[in-house]
């Protein structure tokens, strides 16, 4: 790697991590979300149209995990320049702007969701602009997003987690990582009765089964 020592500091930082566009040219036809085989599109057409639980999948989004120092103002400025929003520094909060959303995960960790096709471009911008010690990991293939809503959405979450979902302590925008049944999920409230669940790929079938089971008494409506 001796031939890179003449580059600038930022270029140097970029070359020291391997950045890779992980998407094929033919993204649309090849990609299979973790719940691809559940075929939500068909279920939305032929399944129940009324019920207390509504569920949809936001498949194939770009998931980027950022680790950096919340006290490093240069880093914070760089992030804001790239995403157009500042990192949420208050624990358990999130910010959203357009198609970008950022969730506080830990004092030095944030989960950024972007449109699937933009993941590599955002990652590259970080590699170009982000100073200091940080890590950025593309984890798009490792998880998927479920949107859960409806009159009984809170009850379903109560059956599945030990979190207090009362609006007075869990307002819109709050985000938690927690146990979901016997798996885990990162859950954000996007509206009074609407929640975003980010779940791990390998557990997706288990969680899908769990949600169907827990919805039985309310009725489950799949949305495409």
């Amino acid at each position, binding site marked *: 790697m001796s031939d890179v020592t003449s580059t600038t500091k930022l270029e140097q930082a970029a070359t020291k991590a391997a950045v890779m566009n992980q998407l094929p040219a033919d993204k649309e036809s*090849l990609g299979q979300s973790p719940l691809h085989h559940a075929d939500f599109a068909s279920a939305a057409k032929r399944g129940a149209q009324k019920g207390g639980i509504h569920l949809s999948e936001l498949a194939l989004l770009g998931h980027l995990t950022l680790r950096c120092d919340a006290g490093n103002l240069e880093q914070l400025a760089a992030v804001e320049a790239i995403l157009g929003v500042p990192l949420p520094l208050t624990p358990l909060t999130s910010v959203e702007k357009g198609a970008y959303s950022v969730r506080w995960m830990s004092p*030095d960790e944030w989960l950024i969701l972007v449109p699937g096709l933009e993941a590599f471009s955002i990652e590259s911008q970080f590699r170009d602009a982000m100073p200091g010690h940080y890590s950025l*990991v593309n984890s798009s293939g490792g998880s998927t997003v479920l949107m859960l809503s409806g009159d009984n959405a809170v009850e379903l979450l109560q059956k599945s987690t030990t979190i207090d979902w009362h609006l007075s302590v869990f307002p819109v925008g709050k985000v938690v990582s927690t146990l979901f049944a016997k798996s885990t999920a990162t859950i954000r409230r996007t509206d009074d009765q609407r929640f975003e669940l980010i779940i791990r*790929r390998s557990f997706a079938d288990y969680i899908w089964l769990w949600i169907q*089971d827990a919805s039985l008494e309310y009725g489950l409506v799949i949305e495409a």
Partner: protein
Amino acid sequence: MTQHNRLTSGGRIDRSTSMTFTYNGKSYQGYKGDTLASAMLANGIDVVARSFKYSRPRGIVAAGAEEPNAVLQLGATEATQVPNVRATQQELFNGLVSSSTNGWPSVDTDVMGMIGKIGGNMMPPGFYYKTFMFPESLWETYESMIRKAAGMGRAPRETDPDIYDSINQHCDVMVVGAGPAGLAAALTAARGGARVIIADEQNEFGGSLLNSSEPLDGKPAADWVHDVVQELRAFENVTLLPRSTVNGFHDHNFLTVHERRTDHLADIAPAKMVRQRMHRVRAKWVILATGAHERPLVYANNDVPGCMITGAVSAYINRYGVVPGNDLVVMTTNDYGYQAALDWAAAGRKVVAIVDTRSVANGDRVEAARQRGLTIITGSAVIEVQGSKRVTGVSVAALNASGTQIVGSVTKLKADTVASSGGWSPVIHLSCHTGSRPVWSDAVVGFLPGPTLQKQLTAGGINGQYETANALQEGLEAGQQALAKLGLPDVELVLPKVKTLNMAAPMSLFHVPHLKPTSQAPKQFVDYQTDVTAAGIEIACREGFEAIEHVKRYTAMGFGTDQGKLGNINGMAVAAKALNKTIPETGTTVFRPNYTPIAFGAIIGRNCGALFEPERYTAMHKWHVEQGALFEDVGQWKRPWYFPKAGETIQQTLNRECLAVRNAVGILDASTLGKIDIQGKDAREFLGRVYSNAWAKLPVGKCRYGLMCGEDGMVFDDGVTACLGENHFLMTTTTGGAAHVYEWLEIYHQTEWPELEVYFNTVTDHWSTATITGPNSRKLLEELTDGDVSNEAFRFMDWQQITVAGVPARVFRISFTGELSFEINVQANYGMAVWEKLIEAGKKHGLTPYGTETMHILRAEKGFIIAGQDTDGSVHPYDLGMGWCVSNQKPFSYIGKRGMNRSDCVRENRKQLVGLKTKNPKQVIPEGSAAVLDPNGVKPLSIEGHISSSYWSETLGRSIAMGFIKGGLDKMGESVFYPLADGTVIEAEICSPIFFDPKGERQNV
């Protein structure tokens, strides 16, 4: 049979809705609003059980959770059998099928009862311990006999068709009990703006108010209850849980509440409805308003059906319109007992006498009884009951002032019902669950909740406040206190007016003396459910058991499913008397969860069947299923085990899969391996500290195998780590070890070396991994890639970023089979697409999918270890013959280095991993077999080691094994023996564990 004990009016039952139920095969009628117990009493059913030890006939004693006898088996079908149901708590529904759980051939004609009569004295306390413990080997035989004789209920033999689940709740105030105190507390807290949950085990809120004829504000108490419930329902932040028993009060104000949602509707829950739900409540404050249980008195033959407690008599009359007999004798130590007589008389049946153990009786209820013209016999007690399947009469005699002796002659009265009251015991069970010991109160004549660390308030009966007015006032105050603690505004509540009754002091009496000494008197039962008598407790004390906990265990007092709710205090009083101590000196046992029995289903919730344990799938799982793979559980992952073709035995499949890899090319789904992305300028330093080998000079583009050890020097995980960039690595771990390794890295980073600039991120699920391995693997890869994968351009232990089947991939040229191999990693959303392309293109190259079993055989042929199979936490790298994977040149004392150099780790003759070749190549040594040097030596034989991996190798045409032998690395060529369970012995020769391609040439082509 008609409901001859049913009143024509009154009670909270709906006489227009008739319901049919069966008990022991006979059909009866009851009404909506009945409990099974009230319906049984209405029909004049006297005998509901045979007792545990003596098989005596037993009847209904109480009207609530404290009932010890009417513990029935429910269920119309085999699958819906439910044991341990208290008839007093089971609401009647049309078609209910019930039976008694003991008595053979029936409770009415019981053969065991003969033993109870003849052999009673042959069954002293400790009988089971004394008789059945020896010889121990026969215990299982004894146990089944005892269970049958004791009449425990039974679990269904078929799968329960109902759904049970659990739900998590949070609140500011959890109110336990919806009697006057609980309702007042909940209403106060709710009006103050608190988030409130109020639970009550009964179907209706109201508690004692429902059983009472006492008016509130001059109106029936039920009217006030109705208004309060209506107001509570209107609050958005109030949850009302009827039919919900708070069964456990756990640390940090966590409560488990068992809600029975459909048990009152039918034998099986209506479609899509949850039968029982466990509410797991975390409350900021808990208000216990659990009330009190009445204590019966202990007197001779007090278990004959027809002997009840006075509060139950009132409850059956006032709430259910059932008078459980014709001629009543009341025996009481207090004014409350008079109420049963007043209610009985009001129902138009005969009160034979009220026997008051006090010499003077003058409270308001006493006066009411006098005015009604009821016979009151003061200073006396019912000392014995006549009858067997129903009370026929009682013996009454005068007592001395302290109640310890009979002083007068005996009068016999005819009666079919005896209602006794020895006072009330606060229901303190929940307050004990987190270890708080109750405190005796002489004023209350009972135990009160002790000091606790929980955020707990108490109100009403649990504090010994049994008058409705006091209970209401305490409920209000508890609600206000909770509001104050929560920082919420205080509220005023106008309590309903209740007539305050003038009450005379109760007498402290538990055990009624008999003419004969206790040991010779007819049985005086303390604990009905476990058949413990006053004499039995006295014997236990005489035999030297002084601690109440020991008396409890020796006599089994309180060990029934009722936890001694009725009998415990009486038992303590009897023990105290026998030990010549006071009750507080004797002390009390404490109560543990659960308050009443719970169905296992309610504890398990939905974590059963397909949801019992998560199954983790790779992106290619569907393909494996479609190809008919059998799966192996590795942690929670489902990994293809092998891919049988029609007609193949498992060994034939494995042979085919192994040969395909050695001769053509195989494909393995390796996605489950743990993967950790590591970034930061100190990543390399960190790797050097957590792996035993060197990482300082690993260049970008290269991979290296590493062993991970604990501080004790023992190997716990292994894997290949690739250098992706100067400051960027991808670590792989074993499938089962991924979570542990991640936490291992984090704990050292967060607690020991926070100064190292490095971040770890789990990316296991992000990458899908298809491993193609075998001599044809390059040809296959070449067809699908734009990259140069020649041996010159892409060396062994290199990784490259190339495109495979149109998808960007990181390909690692590493090998776990010893063959030319490429591990193709793509973003998991594209895993299936690449896999299918590989399968398609691989057809002409003889591509064969294989599973974990073939993977194990192939690696064993090469002598590669599997962490967790060939390691067990007691072997270090040198034991494994892997000293090449240890670098002691590193400046930092890496994890494991010091441990590996402990004296025990460097001694001679440690067990070391070697290969083992059986003399007979066709024999495969079972894994786990123990090695000995001389199978014919003197027993016990000294164990020299064991087999950790053993397979049939089709490639080599013989068996192969890896195992541990003491000093094995120095014993090459020597023989060891493996005696098997069937008596045969396998001889094997110690050899190198590398059975195939010892120079490692095949992976380098």
